[in-house]
């Protein structure tokens, strides 16, 4: 009797383990080429971010909605592959069979920043974009009890105190950092960048009065804007709805680096498969539920088809290259 219970326990253990690791199935098997049957098994979506992170949320929601539009009742399964700022996941995608069963939910950084930094073996046109999804516009946040009330007063303050204003970004070469550096250079401002692990860590430090500002995505800032503790003073887009803030457009500055997310397939995926995937995601992207989500995180929807998405990736790649050179991060 004792032995039986023991064996049972172990059997349960093994069962659970196999359930947990279900997401790591093997996708390299041959799939056949019958176009009409695509997809005939679940499609793996590589997410180069930690579970629970902001892009991971978006990827999970979008794939869940897109699943309904897949033929043959098939499904997507998310695989979080972290490491090397996304290099591991995107390399995995590049080496995957272009059969449509492995795709990735990537971002601007994968096609515009990483290729310049020397560690990645891929570049802006190493993948086949499926669709451009959305992009949040970064904001420069300050505390509402700061000695300046709007952008102009802030600018005066910074000019009077060079090198004093410290702001959080997610590190040199990050989208938040590149946008701030580009503006600071145009306006000839001397600011102090402090690197944090993520947007919410920067917000925490700002709330705790350890630093003076933070460049973050709206999803990290919204709650605090509405609570009245923080306010945006600059929006890195062409226009802004915030009273005390200015935008790139207000200062007649060119576009910054958009923090877009984009779905990628390996290069060489057959037209038919690409179309099935694109249609499924486009429908999900346009659904009411997804619109509600992007509105709730204050991101703008920037749908682009595969061709235009590629153009957009290449342009951003060149823009970022120039900024990184100015920063002295690359030669």
């Amino acid at each position, binding site marked *: 009797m004792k032995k039986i219970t023991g064996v049972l326990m172990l059997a349960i253990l093994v069962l659970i*383990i196999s359930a*947990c690791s279900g997401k790591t199935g093997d996708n390299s098997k041959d799939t056949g080429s019958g176009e009409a049957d695509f997809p005939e098994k679940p499609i793996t979506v590589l997410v180069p971010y930690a579970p*629970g992170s902001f892009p*991971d949320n978006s990827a*999970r929601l979008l794939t869940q909605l897109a699943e309904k539009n897949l033929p043959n009742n098939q499904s997507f399964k998310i*695989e979080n592959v972290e*490491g090397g700022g996304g290099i591991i996941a995107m390399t995995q995608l590049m080496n995957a069979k272009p059969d449509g069963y492995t795709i990735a939910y990537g971002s601007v950084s994968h096609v515009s920043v990483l290729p310049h930094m020397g560690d990645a073996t891929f570049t802006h046109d190493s993948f086949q974009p499926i669709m451009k999804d959305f992009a949040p516009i970064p904001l420069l946040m300050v505390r509402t009890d700061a000695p300046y009330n709007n952008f102009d007063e802030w600018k005066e303050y910074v000019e009077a105190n060079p090198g004093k204003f410290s702001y959080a970004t997610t590190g040199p070469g990050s989208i938040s950092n590149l946008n701030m550096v580009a503006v600071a250079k145009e306006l000839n401002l001397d600011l102090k960048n402090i690197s944090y692990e993520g947007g919410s860590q920067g917000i925490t*430090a700002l709330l705790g009065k350890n630093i003076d500002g933070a460049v973050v995505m709206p999803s990290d800032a919204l*709650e605090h804007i509405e609570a009245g503790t923080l306010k945006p003073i600059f929006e890195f887009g062409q226009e802004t709805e915030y009273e005390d803030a200015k935008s790139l457009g207000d200062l007649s500055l060119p576009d910054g680096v958009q923090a877009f997310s984009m779905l990628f397939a390996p290069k060489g995926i057959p037209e038919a498969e690409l179309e099935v995937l694109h249609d499924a995601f486009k429908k999900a992207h346009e659904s009411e539920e997804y619109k*509600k989500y992007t509105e709730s995180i204050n991101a703008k929807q920037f749908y682009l088809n595969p061709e235009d998405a590629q153009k957009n990736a290449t342009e951003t790649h060149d823009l970022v290259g120039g900024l990184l050179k100015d920063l002295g991060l690359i030669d």
Partner: protein
Amino acid sequence: MSFLDFDFTTLFTLSNLMAIFLGTIVGLIIGALPGLGATMAVIFLLPFTYTMDPVAAVLLLLAAFQAAEYGGSISAITLGIPGTPAAVATAQDGIPLARNESPGKALGISLNASVIGGVVGALCLIFLTEPFANFALRLSDPEFFLLGVMGLIAVASISTKGEMTKSLISVVLGLMVGTIGMDMFTGQPRFIMGQLELMEGLGIVALLVGIFAIPEILRVVKDDLHTQFASQASNLSTKLTGKDMKRIAKPSGVGSIIGTISGLLPGLGTVAAAWFSYIAAKKISKSPETFGKGNPEGIAAPESANNASVGGALIPLFALGIPGSVGIAVVMSAFIVHGIQPGPRIFTKDPTLTYGILYGFLLTTVALYIVGRLLTPLFARILVVPNSFLMPIVYVVAIVGGFSATSRYFDIWLSLILGLISLLFVLSRFSIAAFVMAFVLSPVIEVGLRRSLLISGGSYSIFLTRPFSLVFLIIIILMLMTPVFRKMGERRKRNKLENN
């Protein structure tokens, strides 16, 4: 609406209670598997929450989180393989008590302490959210740096007599291994030896599997594979006597308070909670010399602390919308998918839902106690299985667990290589616990120090001008001076004796 006006009938619905119990069972089992912890449990359950109603969805995850923190001690106590860095502290006394006295008793203490910790954490979350959140905001990089240093001194102070040098070597190695990966201030990779997989540092799960599971399995194989850990089923009862309960009350209380506060601080979290409370329990214990040899207080303190830290970690989430760890970030994503934004206004915007979740979180501790009492004896039974069956299964489970955390084959190799290296360490009696603690604290200390100095423009006065930082600095000096004072006192006493 205040917390007393809450309509409890909205909480006690079938779907909410089902979610809590299911979450508890899944969390306990996943937590008990070596290599898989609370974070894995919530990630595993996340997809199921999308179709549930918001309160049940969040409660499912919170119940799993709560139960997995307890479950982590099961593999530490029964198999000698701590699945989480926090369980390393539990293992110090859990393993000796389980092997020498009774595995049931060790698990029973762990369960009761976990429930106490869970209740304290939940009560703090319900009643003290605002003051605690304000307190958390006042602690930043200078304080994190000093807390990290305090942790290192504490680790050195628990090393066994005569092994101090080896402990210090372990600490230094842990600090060094902790620097592997990208330097976040410059973006430059450090010591990655061309392996992009190392860009974000050594994976903690792969590391734990490597340095605990593999040497333990090899040690059992080397000794005698044809025995079993426990031969008598009578030792498996998790029921505690009144005397036991009385004994663990004080360390559990201390652990709960330390756990809640550590949970508030991102980066430190459950690991620091477990170790600080272990050390505190040893300091206040009547028999500190039995710590490390199977003292129940040494199990109660860290176990209550890691469960209390869950409630603590939820405070910044509810009050400020800030997730302190990956696990909490996953819970937060369940909020967001349901259109709820955690943050300062959640109490006024969605009071029914918010208080439903808070009181439901308190209920998860009740569920943990019931499910724990039912399932734990089954886990204790694992030790009755002959090692020749048990060890191969543990081996596979540990490796799969290590792999599933990141889905990278690289991590399997990493575990195997680290396993062989740490076997040599174990055989030459170096402290693996000190190594892990230093490894976990290494980034806290480095980032804390460097960012403090970046903000202050290179001036060390930042550590003296902030009130909490100054207090921590004084505590550190006292910690360092205590042995010196003690020695001086002893010498004076001896001189007196000689003079007489």
